[in-house]
């Protein structure tokens, strides 16, 4: 019975973590590092507010929010996910704004064994697997699909496709050398510079822009729009720029 206090402690440890002053920000995986820095800066300016992040593929976040997950801010990596959020009445459309833009890049492992300099090289038999986000739920996958369709390469590449659950998984597959090449955002490639090399910047039919919005029914809509404004302020923009994000 000496265990009893320990059990009681473990049952309640961490209960204080999800308090009323928490601002829950659901953001696309590609924003992981940049938004954590933005969140820290925001907390410095707003003592008492604790920014809690939930990073995943944009469509996963959208599904959570549409199902009633208690998020306050939604930042997605493409317009399609945000359009779905609008259609599901999951966000307040009046608060929707683009806050950043990005580029799609083709990356290869640093200790490259197969020569890949452009998407067309992926057709080579030496390229056995190519990682990219699942186009059904991951924005970077949708950008990849659209870009490759435009170049007439989609059928050839998708036959070798390894579908990642989010952009960071695709980055990880390349960094570990499990695939010969992969598609990620330029900002993702930048955080793994020691493991991957950018083989080419891939033009996309539609520009890669990141929309942000306050979640419909957020209990802290005011604080949420405060965070949204901070992301777009000069300070927020410069943090994002530090991670390679460009102005929308």
């Amino acid at each position, binding site marked *: 019975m000496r265990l009893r206090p320990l059990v009681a402690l473990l049952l309640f440890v961490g209960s204080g973590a999800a308090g009323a002053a928490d601002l829950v920000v659901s953001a696309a995986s590609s924003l992981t590092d940049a938004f954590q820095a933005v969140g820290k800066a925001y907390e410095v300016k707003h003592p008492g507010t604790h920014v809690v992040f939930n990073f995943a593929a944009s469509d996963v976040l959208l599904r959570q929010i549409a199902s009633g997950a208690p998020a306050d801010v939604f930042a997605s990596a493409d317009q399609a996910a945000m359009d779905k959020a609008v259609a599901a009445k999951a966000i307040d459309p009046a608060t929707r704004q683009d806050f950043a833009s990005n580029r799609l890049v083709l990356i290869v492992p640093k200790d490259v064994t197969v020569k890949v300099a452009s998407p067309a090289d992926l057709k080579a038999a030496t390229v056995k697997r190519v990682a990219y986000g699942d186009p059904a739920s991951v924005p970077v996958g949708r950008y990849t699909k659209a870009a490759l369709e435009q170049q007439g390469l989609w059928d050839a590449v998708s036959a070798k496709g*390894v579908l990642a659950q989010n952009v960071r998984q695709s980055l990880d597959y390349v960094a*570990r050398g*499990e695939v010969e090449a992969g598609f990620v955002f330029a900002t993702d490639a930048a955080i793994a510079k020691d493991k991957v090399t950018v083989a080419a910047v891939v033009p996309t039919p539609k520009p890669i822009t990141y929309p942000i919005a306050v979640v419909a029914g957020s209990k802290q809509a005011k604080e949420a729009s405060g965070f949204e404004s901070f992301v777009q302020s000069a300070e927020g923009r410069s943090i994002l720029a530090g991670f390679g994000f460009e102005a929308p």
Partner: protein
Amino acid sequence: MGAIWVPLALSLKVALWATAINLVLGVAVAFGLSRWRSPVREVVDSILTLPLVLPPTVLGYYLLVMLGRRGVFGGWLDRMDIQLVFTWQGAVIASTLVAFPLVQKAARAAFEAVDPQLESAARVLGLREAAVFFRVSLPLAARGIAAGALLAFARALGEFGATLMIAGNLPGRTQTLSVAIYAAVQAGDDEGAAVMVAVTSVTCVVALLLAAWLAPNHLRRVRP
């Protein structure tokens, strides 16, 4: 609708392979453990039971670090031209690992329940050790082992975490039912997911019913 057969067939293939491997491996280890007199026996048993309690992500990580191209055995596997990451064989390894304790535990209990006098009698009558095993111990433990194997099959069929990490999500090649369900739910395809969820549930219930019917307890209750 036709799309469901591909992941279903793949899941069955992976689960059957995993069960078959575990039948050989799990039974051999269980027999060894049941006859081994050593203080470290329970330590070994605990380590072998780990896959049952460890988070699948931990197992997936171990597998990736061991078997990946840059893993501990990556170079060796590469030279042998064996690809495990992103292949269905990788999914078999993940499923085999998570389901192993189910066969091992059941088989060990079954072997320990075999009356040692029967084995002694067989030896006295001139059977060699291998023959004692195949003609006495194994047949007597068969029901318990079969029940464990069915549980392992159901577990392997539902394996998700470790499989996703090592075999990835390659439609038609490594996308098993559970991975396909995950992908469908993420993409908002609730109808597709519902069908696959129903198929998985029914298959697992059938396996569990068979396991319950084969379990040794059942025999005792029906014929006291």
